[in-house]
Structures are given as C-alpha cells and as structure tokens.
C-alpha cells in the first residue's frame, strides 16, 4: 500500500474525527490492510506522551495500529504513531549478532558474540576494577530492562556506571522536582488540561513534539474562549500560533522573565499568602532558609523593565502574562527541552514551580506544573527504577548510606555491596570511554554516536582499539553501529512484553504482539544471559522473564512513596494504564499528589490539606534563582545563537521515522531556519546553502527563511544522520543535573 504524504495526512485527519465519536477504528487505512486477526494492547514507541495503541496483527505480522480508546489519548494518535508498522519490517533490521573483525562487522552466533562480550567485561574488571565497565541505556527501553541492567551492574558487578540518554533530556526536570518538592515526577496529570483556564507553555514546542497533548490543549481552548494560552519561546512555532501571548525572548533570558513574573505577582498582591506561608520555604541558591521579605528583596533585580531589557520582551507583556497566570482559576505549566537542555536547567525548572507555589496554583484540578518528556519510558523506566549513576530504585540516592542499606536489604545483598560512590554521569562516562578509562560499555536502545553533544570527540573515542562497546540496536543504519565492536539484534517494540511509564506517572503494558524477527531476542533475555555468563549470583538475578522482574520491582516500591504495589501484571493486562501511587489492587491510581484525600501517601486524617512529604518539614521550596547567561554566549566571532530540536515528522535520531516513506519524504534532510532579517543581512535566500560554524565544527545546510526564529538565532533539527548538527553543539552541562546545553551555543553563518 503506497500512500502519498497528503493521503496519509488526510487519513489521519479522518481517523481523528472518527475517533472523536468512538468510531469503529482509529485509522481509515486499516480497511486497506484487511481486518486484523487480533488487536494487542500496547503503547506508542515515540514520545513521552505515552499514547495507548492497539496493534493489529494478521497472519503473525503487524499490519496496522490504532489508538487505544481506553487510554488517556482516547483513541487519538499523531501521524508518527499511526505509521509505526513499516518500522518493524524495515530492511535495515538487525536480525543476527555481529562481531567486528578487521574493521568490518561479520555475522556471528549468539554464543560467539556473548562469549566475546563477557571475556571483554571480565577482563576489564580483572585488570582495572568494576568501575571500568558501564551500562548506557535508554528512555525507550522497557522498565524491566532498565531495572534489570541497573541491578546487574550495581548489585552484581559492583559498578555504579549505569547511565542512559534520559540524562540528555530529563535530568534537569528531575533536579527541579527533587529540589522543589523533594520527590521526582509531576504532581498532576493530563486530566488537568481539561480544567485549566490558563496554560503557560515554556521551552516546549508541544504542537510538533507532543501533538496529542497539544490537541487536548487546543480542544480546551476551543471549548472555552476564556481559556488563555501563554507561550514563551524564542521561535514562533506552531504552538505559539494559538497563543494569546507569545513571549519571544532572547535565548537564555527566560529565567529573568519568570523572576519578573513573580515580581509582578507580588506587586499586584496576586500571591496566595495563605498557601505560601503555610506550605512553602523560601531558600537562597546557597541553601539558606529565609523569609518572604527576603524573596521580595531578591526579586527587586527583576522588575519587568529590567527583564525587558535583558530578554527583549516588552515589560507590559510580562505584566499581562503574570496577571493572567495568577488570576486564572487554574494555571497549568508545560515545559520540555527548552528548559531542560540548559546549563541552568534545574534553576529554570525551579522557577516554573516558584510561580505555582507563590500563587497556590497547585494541587487542585487544572493547576499544576507539568514537565513533558521526550521519550516513552524515561520516567517509568529510568527515573523511577533508578537507572542513572547516582540513583537507586524509587528515588533513592547512592550517596546516602541509609538509602543504600535499605535497597541492599530489599535486594537481599550483604551490607556494603552497593558501592558508595555514584558512577559517572553521561558526559563524564563518554569522556572516560573516549579516553579508554572506561574499558567496556554495554549500550542498549540508544544512538550516542548521533545524540551526544559535540559528538566528534565521542565518535573519535569510539574508534579506539583499547576500549570495547557492545551495542543492542534494532537498525543497521544507526550511527553507533559504525563504531561498536559487537552488535546484538534486539526484539523491537511489539516483539516483546513490558511496561512503559509516561510523563503523567502512568504505567501501561506493551504486550507482545508478534514473534521477534530472525534471531532477535528481547533485551531482558540478552541481559539475563549476560549476567549468567558474568557469574552474577543467581540469588541476585533470579528472574526468568520480564514478568518476574516487574513483580520484584512492584513489591519493592511498596515501601516507598512511589508505591505501585496495586499495579499488578494482570491488572495492567486488563486496564489501559494506571497512575502511581497506587498502593492496592482496588486503588484507582493517583491524579494529584501531595494533597490529602487524593494522594494515598497522606493519611486521610492528616492535619493539613497539603503535605510535601518529600521534604523533611513538609514544605515545598521557592528557590532564589538568579538569571545567568549561557555557557557560550554570542560574541564578535560567533555572533548568533544556534538552537536545535525536533520537527513533527521525525523523532530523535531518525532511525525509526526515516524508515517510513511518508515521513522521510516530508523532511528528507535537516535544514537551517533563518529569520528574514538575518537572511537579508547575510544575503541568504530561501533554499540557499548556508555554512554554519561553531568553535567545534562547521557544516552546510539548506536555508529555510521565515519569521519563525527570532532575529539573531538559527534553528537546526537534529534527526538527520547525514547532517549531524550535534557535531556543532556544546557539551557544557548543568552543574546539578549534568544535562548538556543543546539549546544554546554561539554560531556564525554565511552563504556557502
């Protein structure tokens, strides 16, 4: 069935209308594919929205996908989600193991490949100790895969070098939540969208990156003309086009704008004194507890006029937005990589929460800060299970002896088994691998040779002979395949069974729809085989399959505020996603955290309505976070700002979306978006070749001249392996979250 892009869009449009009335199917296209033999419940493979899907299987093959009407997306899917089936059967699928010999990947048996992997890992540990080996995973791996890998490395091999690509996308959101509320993950849920009367969208192009949620916001606006939308973004994106107020600011100055909004809120006496006096601690950046008056004093540096000078946003617009936010009956904030991928990412996250805590716009339906997630299982899979170098499951920290002791007890380990020092975070890990200080790394379900910032230094490191990389990757054309020493063929998406946890704390089951292709195996099987061959104590890794792993993780959570003991496997099979905390099997899940009567972690007879139990005093924190510039500001040599991101039709490094003809045709190549004023200044016409040069590398892109970017900045999408913009980006990172600053670096441009 060959469809043009136009036809696909029309089908998607028709399907969405059909679904709105509970139509017989989500995709009109399914009629052409023939009615499937069965429908299997699953979750979309792309962004962190976590849309439920039904996988249509005919004659043992995936033939179509439709939205799950019982999940939060109510049957709706974006175009990427609706077009997943061809990806499963792409000709580039890796279907057997390979070993690199004399620079070339040669087919091998599973036993040959795994024997080599294990000899390299054992050799590294013997010669250089356990910290010379590492795991680098993914927010796309199943929860069971990440939990298992983290346990193998931390409890079995004695290495805390467990990292993953969520460090590159969500670490600052984790840092923001933990410093503000004491616990990770959002307080609210998607249902808040239907009740909010003001949306503050900052650093997020929802319309392209989270289209199903954007549709829900747009629907809310359409249903109630009084609903207001504020979009803060240096680009006039599709998201900004439905805004009542679009704050187009100089990149990096959003911290000043949010402080100025807080200033206005207080000056206009729109703060909720009853709320913040009872439930909030005011704290300086050097962690001194102070009072409200000190906060007022701190904000004097952020009058709207001063913020206007810094940001380029008119003072009266900042005032209007502050009032809009504070006066609404329910304000909901969304943000994503625009705030997170910054050297002040944690601070920017804190400042969004500050606005909610100052106004009491939290803990009631329609009022909440809410971080959007880029990957389908960064939240449930990596953040919740502790799949990063400083974490243990359920938000516990390696550096805290009492946390290690508790996890050791839960895992049945001898006291002192878990090493007390956190491992290497992503940038440090790949630096160490590039210097062959980390000798052996196991990479699963991610493409670091494309996704790392300033990527040339890491690909050079991957070429060395004195380090070793084993890669489990479904697609032969993924950039990292060029550099791995062993390539393993994993089962892909619907070929295996496990759980994804999306942005709203919702855990949903992806059931296995079809058998894995060729010799492919689920990563759980690959990791279990690895652990056995490495001689990890079978009492530490007693699992036979992913169901066993979920069972252990579920029971383990019950002693923590993440408590999802009630989310059993049979329940997941039956229901389309459940939000934790969910302590018992008859509990419906939790839409609002930290509120008595809503959050099961708070006793029903608790004295106060709110309880931020992540903090010892039960109070959330309003942080004093000053405006500071980016790591690399424009200067005379590199006078513009380079910004990178996504386009609607492609996802991350394009290894999946470039397999779909309609998506590939719509955006075959990366391009550079240039403002019309800048184009005039540099003599650039639409379609011209333009040379972009940073202090790290240079590259030629075709120009798209428009008014989307504000003057002084250019934007390049990062999906294209042929035009890899990450050769130009910067690997400076946030001191707290260790997340790199992809969103801002200095660049110069000229017509090529």
């Amino acid at each position: 069935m060959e469809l043009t892009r136009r036809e696909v869009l029309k089908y998607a449009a028709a399907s969405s209308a059909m679904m709105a009335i509970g139509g017989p199917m989500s995709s009109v296209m399914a009629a052409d594919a023939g009615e499937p033999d069965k429908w299997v419940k699953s979750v979309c493979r792309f962004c962190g929205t976590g849309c439920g899907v039904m996988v249509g299987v005919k004659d043992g093959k995936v033939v179509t996908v439709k939205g799950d009407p019982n999940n939060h997306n109510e049957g709706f899917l974006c175009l990427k989600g609706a077009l997943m089936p061809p990806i499963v059967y792409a000709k580039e699928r890796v279907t057997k193991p390979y070993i690199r010999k004399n620079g070339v990947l040669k087919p091998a048996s599973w036993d040959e490949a795994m024997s080599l992997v294990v000899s390299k890992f054992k050799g590294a540990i013997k010669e250089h100790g356990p910290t010379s080996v590492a795991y680098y995973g993914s927010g796309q791996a199943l929860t069971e895969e990440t939990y298992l890998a983290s346990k193998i490395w931390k409890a079995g091999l004695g290495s805390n070098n467990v990292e993953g690509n969520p460090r590159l996308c969500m670490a600052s959101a984790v840092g923001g939540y933990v410093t503000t509320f004491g616990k990770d993950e959002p307080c609210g849920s998607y249902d808040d969208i239907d009740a909010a009367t003001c949306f503050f969208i900052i650093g997020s192009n929802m319309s392209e990156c989270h289209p199903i949620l954007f549709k829900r916001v747009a629907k809310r606006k359409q249903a109630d003309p009084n609903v207001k939308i504020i979009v803060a973004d240096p680009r006039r994106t599709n998201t900004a086009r439905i805004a009542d107020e679009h704050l187009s600011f100089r990149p990096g100055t959003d911290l000043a704008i949010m402080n100025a909004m807080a200033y206005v809120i207080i000056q206009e006496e729109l703060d909720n004194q009853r709320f913040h006096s009872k439930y909030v601690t005011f704290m300086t950046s050097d962690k001194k507890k102070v009072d409200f008056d000190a906060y007022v004093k701190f904000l004097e540096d952020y009058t709207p006029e001063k913020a206007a000078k810094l940001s380029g946003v008119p003072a009266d617009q900042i005032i209007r937005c502050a009032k809009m936010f504070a006066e609404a009956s329910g304000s909901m904030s969304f943000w994503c990589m625009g705030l997170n991928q910054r050297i002040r990412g944690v601070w920017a996250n804190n400042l969004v929460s500050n606005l909610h805590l100052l106004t009491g716009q939290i803990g009631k339906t329609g009022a909440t800060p809410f971080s959007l997630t880029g990957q389908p299982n960064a939240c449930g899979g990596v953040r919740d299970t502790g799949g990063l170098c400083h974490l243990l499951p359920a938000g516990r920290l390696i550096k805290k002896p009492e946390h290690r002791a508790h996890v050791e007890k839960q895992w049945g380990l001898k006291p002192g088994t878990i090493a007390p020092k956190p491992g290497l975070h992503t940038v440090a890990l790949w630096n160490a691998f590039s210097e062959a200080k980390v000798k052996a790394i196991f990479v699963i379900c991610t493409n670091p040779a494309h996704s790392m910032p300033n990527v040339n230094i890491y690909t050079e490191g991957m070429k060395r002979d004195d380090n070793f990389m084993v890669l489990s990757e479904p697609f032969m054309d993924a950039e990292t395949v060029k550099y791995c020493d062993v390539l393993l063929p994993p089962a892909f998406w619907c070929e295996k069974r496990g759980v994804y946890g999306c942005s709203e704390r919702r855990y949903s089951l992806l059931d296995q729809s079809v058998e894995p292709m060729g010799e492919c195996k689920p990563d759980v099987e690959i990791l279990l085989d690895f652990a056995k061959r490495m001689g990890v104590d079978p009492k530490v890794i007693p699992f036979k399959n992913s169901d066993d792993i979920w069972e252990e993780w579920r029971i383990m959570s019950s002693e923590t505020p993440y408590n999802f003991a009630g989310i059993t496997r049979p329940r997941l099979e039956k229901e389309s996603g459940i939000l934790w905390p969910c302590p018992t099997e008859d509990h419906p899940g939790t839409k609002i955290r930290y509120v008595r009567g809503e959050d099961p972690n708070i006793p029903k007879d608790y004295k106060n309505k709110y309880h931020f139990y992540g903090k010892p005093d039960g109070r959330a924190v309003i942080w004093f976070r000053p405006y500071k510039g980016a790591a690399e500001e424009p200067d005379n040599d590199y006078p513009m700002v380079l910004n990178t991101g996504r386009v609607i039709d492609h996802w991350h490094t394009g290894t999946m979306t470039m397999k779909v003809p309609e998506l590939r045709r719509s955006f075959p190549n990366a391009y550079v978006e240039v403002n019309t004023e800048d184009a005039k200044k540099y003599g650039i016409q639409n379609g011209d070749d333009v040379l972009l040069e940073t202090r790290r590398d240079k590259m030629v892109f075709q120009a798209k001249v428009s008014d989307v970017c504000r003057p002084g900045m250019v934007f390049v999408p990062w999906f294209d392996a042929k035009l890899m913009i990450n050769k130009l980006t910067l690997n400076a990172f946030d001191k707290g979250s260790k997340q790199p600053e992809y969103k801002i670096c200095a660049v110069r441009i000229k017509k090529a």
Partner: protein
Amino acid sequence: MAILGFLIHTLDEDVREVEAKVKKMPEITTYGVHQDHFIVTVAEVPADDVEKIMNKIKELDGVLTTYTTYLTIEDEIDENGNLQTNLSLTDLMRKEPKDPIN
C-alpha cells in the same frame, strides 16, 4: 496548505442532504455518516481559508455545528520564495461551538 479533520453535526433528518452538499465542495472529502448525525470530513484548503470553509459549512441548512479534531499546516512559499507561516489560529480557537454535544 492546511489539512483539517472535523465532524459535521447535523439534524438527523438533514444528514444525507448536508452530506450531498458538502461532497460537492472541491476541497472536501467525506468518510461517511455515523450515529445518524455526524459526517466525518476532511478539508484541504490554503491555510488562510480554514475559517472560510468552516463558516461555509456551518451556514448550510441542517448543520448544528462542526468539531475540529485534527489540523496540520504545511509550509507555503510566497512569491519571494520565503515560507509563509502567518496563519493565526487564535481567532479560530476562540470561536465558541454552537450547541455543544452533551
């Protein structure tokens, strides 16, 4: 060019007549009548004409309202070769639906 998916909500007795009229519009494709009063419809129109076509449909006898469920806007190139992305959907979004379905 905008591609718009929407439902036309009609009086039950007028649904076939409305469908016939809408089918004659060159920019419209329909995907059947559902629940006796919904016409599943897709419009392909220049971005600036979205409201025009929606208003044209709403003015047909028997149409109670329309519900937009999908909207995508493809880039358009102006006479100077620059991308035109000036469509403001704000006004469109502000329009209150008539006779909302309960």
